[in-house]
């Protein structure tokens, strides 16, 4: 499998770029007998942020885990750049260019900051590429450069979030799945993280699926949004339109 190349960020309008960088088709997945996702479909173009919203238990985390391979979908397809990755092993999906930053961040606390980043690059074949990726990470996130030798366990919540996003980028993914990046962070830090995600879309042309309870912040940077309820997509629209729909906001999103 060749290393995923970065898509050309020539345009950031998802409607114009085609085919969809990430397409989820009629996904049915769950744990045990009950399906948590009951036919979910998503299309997201290169260089876009799609906010995935909804209450607890709606299936948002399961959606990301189905895409990244930790949950085996029962039906449906997950297309990344045209290739169906559903039902593959998580390692293979990661190497195909899908980076998943899980809920709770997933910092490897026993390692240093630099070691965490280097782990992120291990999927790359070439040593030069890994070294270059590390330098890029330090350039883009100076706060990590300052703390490179420290144990990852000593980082603050916001710093950890930046670390795991930086780590996810080390293998030059095409798709970035973020699960509740704002969880547990102070409002000022949340704003920083959101701004960071926005920059990633603009600079790197990433396709971002952003799962968030904090719907307001998410819709603030997203291009499109969709709302999950009980495993189905109940609303899907441009982010601005969703944010403006007061009834929807009150009913599903809590603001």
């Amino acid at each position, binding site marked *: 499998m060749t290393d995923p190349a970065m898509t050309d960020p020539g345009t950031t309008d998802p409607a114009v770029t085609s085919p969809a960088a990430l397409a989820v088709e009629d996904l049915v997945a769950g744990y045990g007998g009950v399906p948590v996702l009951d036919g979910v479909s998503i299309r997201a173009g290169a260089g876009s942020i799609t906010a995935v919203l909804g209450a607890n238990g709606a299936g948002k985390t399961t959606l990301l885990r189905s895409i990244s391979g930790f949950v085996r979908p029962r039906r449906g397809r997950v297309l990344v750049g045209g290739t169906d990755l559903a039902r593959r092993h998580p*390692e293979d999906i990661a190497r195909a260019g899908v980076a998943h930053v*899980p809920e709770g961040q997933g910092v490897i606390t026993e390692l240093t900051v630099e070691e965490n980043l280097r782990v992120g690059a291990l999927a790359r074949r070439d040593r030069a590429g890994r070294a270059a990726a590390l330098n890029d990470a330090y350039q883009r996130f100076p706060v990590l450069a300052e703390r490179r030798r420290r144990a990852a366990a000593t980082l603050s919540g916001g710093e950890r979030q930046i670390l795991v996003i930086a780590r996810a980028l080390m293998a030059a993914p095409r798709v970035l799945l973020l699960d509740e990046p704002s969880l547990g962070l102070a409002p000022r830090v949340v704003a920083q993280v959101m701004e960071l995600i926005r920059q990633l879309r603009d600079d790197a042309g990433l396709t971002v699926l952003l799962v968030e309870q904090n719907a307001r912040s998410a819709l603030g940077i997203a291009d499109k949004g969709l709302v999950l309820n009980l495993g189905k997509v109940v609303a899907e629209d441009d982010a601005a339109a969703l944010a403006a729909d007061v009834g929807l906001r009150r009913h599903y999103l809590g603001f």
Partner: protein
Amino acid sequence: MQEFLEFTLGGIGIGMIYAAIALSLVLIWRGTRVLNYSQGGMAMFTTYVAWVVISHTGNYWAGFVVALACGLVLGAILERAVVRPTVGKSPLNSVIVTIGLLIFLEGLAGIIYGGQYRSFPAAYSVKGLKIGSVALGISPSDLFTAAAVLAAALALALIFRYTSVGLRLRATAFNPSVARLLGIRIGRVLTLGWALAGLFGALAGVLVTPSTFLYPNSMDSIFVLGFTAAVIGGLDSPVGAVTGGVLLGVVLSYAGGYLGSDLVLVYGLVVLALVLMIRPNGLFSAPVTRRV
């Protein structure tokens, strides 16, 4: 005083063997929470292979190297074929399967080589060294044992710290799910862990068998004492494994020396019981908290 010196140095010598077994247990336990009960059996088996090579070629080092290589291969094969299917299931599964492996290897050795005690050569002289007229209680062979285990442990530490392979091993050991998310093929990493463990076990086997003689059950006591050493150091800690091994070796040497040497295993049992009651997570880990 001379006795004390003899016991101490002798204890360090045998302690290195316990350390090697303990290291192999830690290597596997860290990533997988599987305790490889067949580690001693694997070591015994690779020592038999070495014995065959030495008998046929007359060359000790050929046998030594072949034993280590067999350890690598045996570890990899056993992980892939027998232990991998137990991953994710109840811990009793892996316990019973590795015990099955142990007894299978012992039976197989008995079938192929018979049950009689065979002698196995040492790398160097086993005659005790003296400084002037003071007997040190160790021989050139003991010195080689200590040096070999320390060198291997050091090499392992360097691999862990400075190479990508080492990083893979550590990441997989600390957080397998995140490792998978980052694209690490943890299946291969697990196989490598078992292969390295097999290497250390094979090393221990070749180094200790000259004094225990070679027979299908020859590594049983060494294994349980190696297990005790690993528990002392903390099953998660490679440094603990080496320290625990040396500590146990010295303590048992004193006990055997001053109290009578036939009950070494019973003393070991007492040590194990004490450690498990007082500090079950070992000396080098944080005390145990139960997560609810």
